[in-house]
């Protein structure tokens, strides 16, 4: 049985999909924690601005430094939890096989798009990374290039999650197809 699991390519692929799901769940926990941190930070800055009279530049910049990973990791979590939106007027009337086939196609498209985003962001990230771009404002945060590098990183994860979903739909397609 064990032998069989390791040699059957579909089982291998499903094991890969499970591994990706685990990574995305970790990313989900991280992004949720960052979201709570961001709420606290925005509150802190409001307190600083209206009660103390000023809030530090770095704390204001940190708000959107947190927003970027939250939004970018969030869309991968969205794929894992199938929380994305679609027009399902036609979709929900399709037979199950067709639904899986369509989802398989959509997820492969998603993976391709993510790879394209990574490809096109090479120059954008490179120019920020090569000069170690930071905040132009005094008192600002030093590592703006890291925020920019989040884009290809997050879409890498997005591509993996789309592939994992595609594998599950392919497996379901074989099952339903008999």
């Amino acid at each position, binding site marked *: 049985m064990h032998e069989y699991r390791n040699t059957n390519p579909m089982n291998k692929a499903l094991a890969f999909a499970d591994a990706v799901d685990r990574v995305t769940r970790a990313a989900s926990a991280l992004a949720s924690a960052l979201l709570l941190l961001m709420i606290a930070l925005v509150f802190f800055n409001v307190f600083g601005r209206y009660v103390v009279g000023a809030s530090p530049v770095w704390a204001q910049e940190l708000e*959107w430094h947190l927003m970027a990973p939250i939004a970018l990791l969030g869309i991968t979590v969205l794929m894992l939890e199938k929380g994305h939106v679609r027009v399902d007027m036609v979709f929900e009337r399709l037979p199950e096989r067709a639904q899986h086939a369509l989802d398989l196609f959509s997820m492969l498209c998603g993976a391709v798009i993510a790879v394209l985003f990574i490809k096109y962001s090479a120059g954008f990230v490179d120019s920020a990374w090569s000069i170690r771009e930071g905040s132009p404002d005094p008192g600002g945060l030093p590592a703006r290039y890291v925020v920019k590098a989040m884009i290809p990183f997050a879409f890498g994860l997005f591509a993996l999650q789309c592939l994992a979903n595609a594998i599950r739909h392919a497996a379901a397609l074989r099952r339903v197809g008999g």
Partner: protein
Amino acid sequence: MDDMLAIYMILGFMCALLIGMPVGIGISVAGFTFGWMGFGDFLFNLVPSRIYGVVTKYEFIAIPLFVYMGVMLEKSRVAEDMLEVIGRLSGRMNGSMAVALIVVGVLMGASTGIVGATVVTLTMLTMPILLKRNYDGGLAAGAICASGTLGQIIPPSLVLILLADIMGESVGTLFAAAMMPGLMLAGLYIGFILVLGRLRPDLMPPIPEAERAEIRGWALARKAVYSLAPPLLLVAGVLGTIIGGIAAPTEAAGVGAVLSIVIALIYGRLTFAMIWSAAQSALRISAMIFFILIAAQVFSVAFRGLNGEDIVQDTLALLPGGETGALIFLMLLLFVLGFFLEWIEISYIALPLLLPFFVASGTDMVWLAALIALNLQTSFLTPPFGWALFFLKGAAPPLVTTAMIYRGVLPFIAIQVVALVMLFNFPAIATWLPEAIGW
């Protein structure tokens, strides 16, 4: 053939959506495919910096914060108690909860200025309890989408601030111009609910007599104060500081999120698990909005690269009917563009191309701005591509089907059309107030 690619791209996107591709994936696929056919790939190097712009935009930080506030008020059942008490206070009247929802929705939309955040938060707050109280899902969906999008054009709205910049009018003038049409629409929505409540009471039943009898008089009054005061203070405080110009929407949203936790604590319902699961829900729902905002960048880069703007301009030049013809064309065009582009893009890309024509024909810019705002709002809630509908679907319980939502918004779209026609024929609805107060 080549110059029609922008049009084919729009059709391609429509097909992808209709067969049920996820919206974010479908819009990117259409953008990349037709972009390559038209101009190769050099322009797509612009996409990452636009994505970076979306995920770091200060105003957009308000999205997860407002969503968190909404999720928290929903999870701690504060919102539920609030609508419940309004239902009890209204006695036998049908539709009172829907009216309450419209008032809150308009206030909220006006202050946040973000379609997605408003519609999602409203849905989280009101949809579960309305369904529990046997309201028709479609009616609830329609009321949420209509009031959530109406907020976009009621001052102080971001839409109007941008329009003022583009059209060279003062912000105050446009605020005054949008006030009457906006309030007129809100009144029409409420009137519609009340009339429908008479004709079809089954769609929005009052709380049953037996249940209302359980709690009456002073006990009810105490309960009303107890359940209404904290959330109303929260909403009034958050919205008041934004409308009063004291705090930016993002700041107010941050305070609102923290206060929603405090309110749950006051009611003794707060748990750590609740704080955490609200964060996870807020993450998923915000990501739904961000996914579309991010993916739409591909489409809008491709639309510009394929000279979609030139096509628009050429069409305009060929148009018969002078000013009126051009106005009608503009209205139709904005309506269709509203399906695919965020209003920011429409305002900055499409409008500047068309404006010179109207300036030359002496069109009243204040009136035009009001028409444009009203029109954009309508297109956000028109099936099958209205953004508000996607956002509602993503946040509503699964038993609310797409067909139900479409059916529910139809009467509200009819109201929009009536309002547009009225404004078109009686420009004074928009121009009267700015003149009267001298702005």
